[in-house]
């Protein structure tokens, strides 16, 4: 008796037989734009600001010196008394807040995270044309659950070095072996009569702080 071929082998054989006589597909043309935005850092930053706000993120601008006070103010105004702290978050960013810090070392359980009011993170980069911030779990960002379960996410973007104009400019700067989360505005749904509602399961509020001028 010959052994039954595995489903893997059967599917692959069917796939190959299905296209065996098909002509070669024409080469992929990449004549679309690399970016739709003029190469001007100030203009790109303005566009990021505008597009983030258009999808109901709250956007603020500051300098490195002004950052700790701004973070403290955002947390206080949203009534956040506890804040999750990802590993590697620069200590100075939380220097001015009196919110109780909840470091994620050791890992907070999902239930513990659910009891935290806010999280403050950096990001990997931000995309101006789409109003998107991208997290890759690097220092100061932490694992994905940290920016998902608490109801307020305060995200710090360093301009201009973390800001790109477009999706085609973003992908080469990202490492696909890392878990990536692209965030464009807060959690939202339009499932009920197409009325947009913010905050179904992810954070209801996204505060993005754009910091210009040599933050480290």
């Amino acid at each position, binding site marked *: 008796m010959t052994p039954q071929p595995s*489903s893997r082998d*059967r*599917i*692959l054989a*069917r*796939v190959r*037989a*299905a*296209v065996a006589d*098909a002509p*070669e*597909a*024409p*080469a*992929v*043309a*990449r*004549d*679309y*734009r690399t970016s*739709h935005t003029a190469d001007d850092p100030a203009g790109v930053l303005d566009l990021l600001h505008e597009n983030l706000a258009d*999808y109901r993120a709250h956007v603020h601008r500051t300098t490195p010196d002004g950052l700790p006070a701004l973070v403290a103010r955002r947390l206080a105004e949203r009534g956040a008394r506890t804040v999750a702290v990802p590993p590697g978050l620069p200590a100075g960013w939380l220097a001015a807040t009196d919110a109780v810090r909840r470091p994620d070392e050791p890992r907070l359980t*999902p*239930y513990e995270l*659910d009891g935290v009011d806010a999280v403050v993170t950096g990001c990997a980069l931000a*995309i101006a*044309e*789409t*109003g*998107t911030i991208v997290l890759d*779990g690097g220092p100061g960002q932490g*694992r*994905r*659950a940290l920016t*998902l379960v608490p109801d307020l996410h305060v995200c710090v973007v360093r301009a201009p070095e973390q800001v790109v104009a477009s*999706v*085609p400019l973003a*992908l*080469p700067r990202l490492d*696909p*072996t*890392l*878990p*990536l*989360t*692209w965030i*464009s505005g807060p*959690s*939202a*749904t*339009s*499932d*009920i*009569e*197409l*009325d947009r*509602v913010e*905050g*179904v*399961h992810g954070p209801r509020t996204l505060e993005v702080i754009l910091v210009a001028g040599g933050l480290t």
Partner: protein
Amino acid sequence: MSGTFVGMPSFPKAAHEAVGDATLRANLRHATHTIRDKRARAVAELDDWAALREAGKRIKDDTLRHLGTYLVRLEEAVTRAGGTVHWAADAAEANRIVTDLVKATGETEVVKVKSMATQEIGLNEHLEAEGIAAYETDLAELIVQLGEDRPSHILVPAIHRNRGEIRDIFREKMGSWGRPAPEGLSDTPAELAEAARLHLREKFLRAKVGISGANFMVAETGTLVVVESEGNGRMCLTLPETLISVVGIEKVVPTWRDLEVFLQTLPRSSTAERMNPYTSMWTGTTDDDGPRTFHLVLLDNGRTDALADEVGRQALRCIRCSACLNVCPVYERAGGHAYGSVYPGPIGAILTPQLRGTTSDIDASLPYASSLCGACYDVCPVAIDIPEVLVHLRERVAGEGGKGHRLEKAAMKAAGWVLDHPSALAAGERLASATRKLHPKRLPGPGARQWSDHRDLPELPAEPFRDWWKKNRT
């Protein structure tokens, strides 16, 4: 759960009832027109849309031409990154694989990300029969699941329900699935969404197994991509210890760079946004972040049949944006349920008969569920020529000899004879004009009557054009 499509009547029959439902038609009209207008604005922001569309088409054509190579590459990359790849030839095998994987964890409940592939194979019903509760977590899917209903749109599955109906479903059903709806729940979308948040959060926090599909799989890197809005997807993809993703084999793209095309075209075509609120990308497993165990189930279930059809295979380019539904005059009136499949609208009319074959009444009727107006082709971000495939599938169905289609062939043969004999044509036209007061508003006979039930017959002129021409111009 009555989520099954088995035994659905043919499209004309199902559509007939839907067309008579004025509320449904009004809901659908509002929804489809709102999304289509927004989409047009979102697309207009990119002046290279035509180039992006062509690139998307070619990437998918290259993928399909070398699908075997890319699937093997994907399998290697996912395995290298710590995942396990399974292959499922059909729905039964996919359901068995997933059930065994869930049972191996010792869990009896799973949380699910909205996924067409798992709907297609009837995974929830299968899991239920095996004693495993599968919780849908997308708000619209939750509404559909609690309402023991079927989805009617790819993107907004509960588009046929209004807020009052949703409140009633939440009040009546939430309690038997978990946390009940809050006392005094109103029908405002914000309160309804909040009720869903509370109801599902307890499930997310305790979930040990998550089940998803994927929008894209990158062969080069082994990366899976899920595009969503609410964060329920992120919850299911990151909080559980085990993640099982069931994905159609056509969802692979060759390279990381290819995502630059689809992440521009999918959100704008789908929800008419520059970018959807959340996109998750993961490659195998990551220490200390997300599930420790990741299984990818690659699903055929008729896709290789579609791939073998040289005209029809372009349907496998589909990225499930649903733009074709929102512009379709037939979908707008008939609604999603009439298509008898998880894939409604124009794309469903060409995909379903290819995945399932054309032996059942509903599948044989789907290629005719279109006016061939071509709007679906115009908006498709991967340029699927849906009208071309519809006509191609009609030929196949007619060749297989359905009852109604023998009639069509006889009519075409008679028409051919008349057109070949000008004097007969002229006599027929004169007779038609002379008797026009006697013409019925509805046509007699099967097929013709159904046609004229929903359409006005054209008025015939007082005299045939060729007689008028002879009198006035010669």
